[in-house]
């Protein structure tokens, strides 16, 4: 496993939204998908996954439905709602701004001051 990074506070919801926005997923699937799309760099603490899923569902950002998994078991699948998609877009944009700002701040050399 490659080097893994700690999750920044507040980013878990964003990652979950992103994961289920690609394709409906069950809880375990969300875990695997985040691992996959982050190149296994991000470790989601399993204990905080479900509270986060329930919170997002409660806020109406994702929706849940019971379905059948690949190995024919009953599983709860989460999909993103239009409100969730909107929120994801906003959060992505503000994240980009943050990253750009911090990157430019950190890249500053003494001559530039």
């Amino acid at each position, binding site marked *: 496993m490659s080097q893994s990074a700690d999750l920044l506070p507040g980013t878990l919801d964003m990652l979950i939204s992103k994961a289920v926005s690609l394709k409906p997923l*069950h809880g375990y699937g969300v875990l695997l998908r985040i691992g996959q799309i982050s190149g296994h760099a991000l470790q989601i603490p399993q*204990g905080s996954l479900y*509270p986060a899923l*329930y919170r997002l569902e409660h806020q109406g950002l994702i929706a849940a439905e019971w379905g059948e*998994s690949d190995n024919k078991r009953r599983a709860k699948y989460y999909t993103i709602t239009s409100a969730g998609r909107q929120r994801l877009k906003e959060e992505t944009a503000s994240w980009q701004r943050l990253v750009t700002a911090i990157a430019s701040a950190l890249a500053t050399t003494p001559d530039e001051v």
Partner: protein
Amino acid sequence: MVHRLRSLMNALFHRDRFESAMSDEIRFHIDAYADDLVRAGWSREEAQRQARLEFGGVERVKEDAREARGVRLFDELRADVRYAMRQLRHAPAFTAVAVLSLALGIGANTAIFSLMQSVLWSTLPVDAAKRLRLISWVSGPQLVMDSTWGNMNPTATGGRTSTSFSYPVVQELQRRDSSFEQLFAFKPIGRITAVIDGQAELVTGQLVSGNVYEALGVVPIAGRPIVPADDDRPGSGMAVAISDAFWARRFGRAPAVLGRTMTLNQVDVTIVGVNPPAFTGLASGQHPDVFLPLSAQPVVLPWRYGKSPSLLDDPEYWWVLMMGRRKPGVDEREAKASLDVLLRQAVQASLPHKAARDQPRIQLLAGAQGLNDVRRAFSTQLFVLSAFVALVLLIACANLANLLLGRAVVRQREISLRLALGAGRGRVARQLLTEGIVLALLGGAMGIVLGYWARDSIPYLLSTSWNASPLQADFDRRVLAMCVTVTLVIGVLFSLAPVCQSTRVELTESLKDGARTTMTRSKRLMRRSLIVFQVALSVLLLTAAGLFVRTLWNLRSADLGFQPGQIVLFTIDPPRSAYSGEARKALFQRLEEEIGGLPGVVSASLSSEPLVANSSSTTRVAASGRKPSQGDSIQVWVNDVGERFFETMRIPILYGRALGPRDRATSLPVAVVNQQFVRTFFPGENPLGQTFANASQSWHIVGICGDARYDEVSAPVPPTFYQPFAQTKDLGAMTFEVRAAIGEAGLVKAVREVVRTIDKDIAVFDVRTQEEQIAATFSRERLFAVLTSAFGLLALVLACIGIYGVMASAVASRIPEIGIRMALGAESRRVLTMILRESAGLAGLGAFIGVLGAAALGRSIEGLLYGIRPFDPVTVSGAVLLMLMVALLAAWWPARFAATLDPMHALRRG
């Protein structure tokens, strides 16, 4: 937001489904991970173990998920409530006292509030009631009309105001007005004789214009409403509507009632509709049985004094009430102005010769309640009563606060322990708050049930055997909402004080082994102030109650000038179509004679006005046969009486003679006058043989009788003369007075028999004893005396409980001190007096404040008192004495306990 609420509701109401889904989901997660591990080469068993391990505490995850869904708050709340209930169950005495205090306080408020709701705030059950206006007029003292029927009140500037209009004016306004949706008219007509299936009975009637139902949007529950066409077709066979109550009472809700005929005052009418239950006419406090078109007046209530029996075309006679719903686009001032113009034109057109008089001007009154006379009669009383019950509730709340403070002391250690074990202060505060609210809700629920049960008992105090109560209690959503709000506010407010105290506890201090549960100084001061506050309010309420009781007592023991014992009254109003003029007098004479001859009857008579019944006839007369001009005539009271009136009522004849058989219609008109009459007209003269006259006739004085009360007890005896009914021009209903040695029931049966043999269509009604009649005129005062005494006693009991509670806990916390005192040789009697003195001191201070309050507030109830000043030293000292005695009594048990302590035992407990 909606989404969150729905998701929370789903989780709460389908709790099982929510929980099992959550378990399923987590199990699936662990299994799926384990499957992946197996695929990666792990053994099944190892894989399961690893998956579980990495997932972490399942319960912890579930709990966090529940919180995310908002469910956790509710779980905790439920636990809090359960814990609170357990706490309350463990302290049954505390719970019972607190709940009962609150229940009584809130119950009293519920009962009074439901009365106020119905009298002051309830509206007609129609659409847009807020836009309804009752049309009235104001005028200077020189009125345009000759006669009015209905209420007429003086204005501040010496003019008059009334809601009565002549029918020609009403019709003109109806025709020309455009600022109201529709103007409609009505008139309560009191009781009329109905004959249904050959049986005569009295029903209450209301005349309504043909457009009332349409204008208000009242839809009958059966049949059809009265329509404008009915109003155009007066006379036999006309359409009437009946009330739901009358339908139930008289016809057992039989559908066949539609199309039935009955007679009203000898006129055949047809029932065409039944009103919805909520619609009880347009005058509050009255519940008419029958609704007739206005045009029925000439036949059903023929006017006996005018040229024609009809009032409908008489511009001089103002009697019809008018209402309308203002059009939504028209503002109040415009509506008033346009109606004012129309009224002026209508008055000028119908009374052209009265242009020099003061012209009436329109005034729009709120019409949402219809015509509301009850409101005027009772609003002061209701406001005083509501202040009373609010104070009682305050006393109850003081008890609650006191009890909660006391408990906070007892539970100090428990709370410290919980804080020490890591419970958040917020969590502990929430627990205490929950306890307070649970307590308040228990008390409130009981109080509301109590108030609901008691809601009819207050109006009942005002009803008599012959008249329904003018008051009614409405227990509706508004009342319920008010009670629940008050309860919750009390719960929150009064649990907050101990919350602040308890969570500020010094942990180490109170957890120390052997640390005594003592009160801080501020807490003790607070509890004592509460006692002083309770005593002050109780003294205030007791004083007021005392004043009202003495008012009632003064009314009851006032000298009447006649002897009311053993007299039975009843009223007879023979249909005018069959009995008028001389035939009517002959009938009354025959009845007087036959009833007087019944076995057991001492003497019988009759009069046009029963005594002390709040009704009177007056006229203006001048002495010595001169025709009175406006200046020198004086208003006097007159009664048309039978031959044996003075003998029956036992009003002494002081000089001259009583009225007798020789005073016939054809002989010289005579009168017996009372002493006040003599004092007014013939001071220092011999009035016998003198004459006096009003505008239309003169009387010859043949006798002088003692002063007797006429219409009411609380007013001085007015100058009064009595004339033989045989000599009066026309008679209405007559009330018979029968002094009998036999019981009321047997007498009434015999009387009914006599009346029936003469004419079966004549109803005998309003049967009551003279004493009941007198008592009925101060039913309001009685209601007041009863209620205020009850609330005063309630206050006393609540204060007593408060004092007991404080003194008991004061003694409990001072046990070691008392033990030392006794060990050092204090006698038990001294300990007893020490405790009692403390209680008496608090009560004395409270009583002093209460007396100051009574002195300050006495003015506001002056108008409700009779024969007593608002600050009466005897009443005040009585209240104070009673309060002090109760305070000593309440402190007696704790004091007794302290005095009989075994010093050794007491010291060891310390």
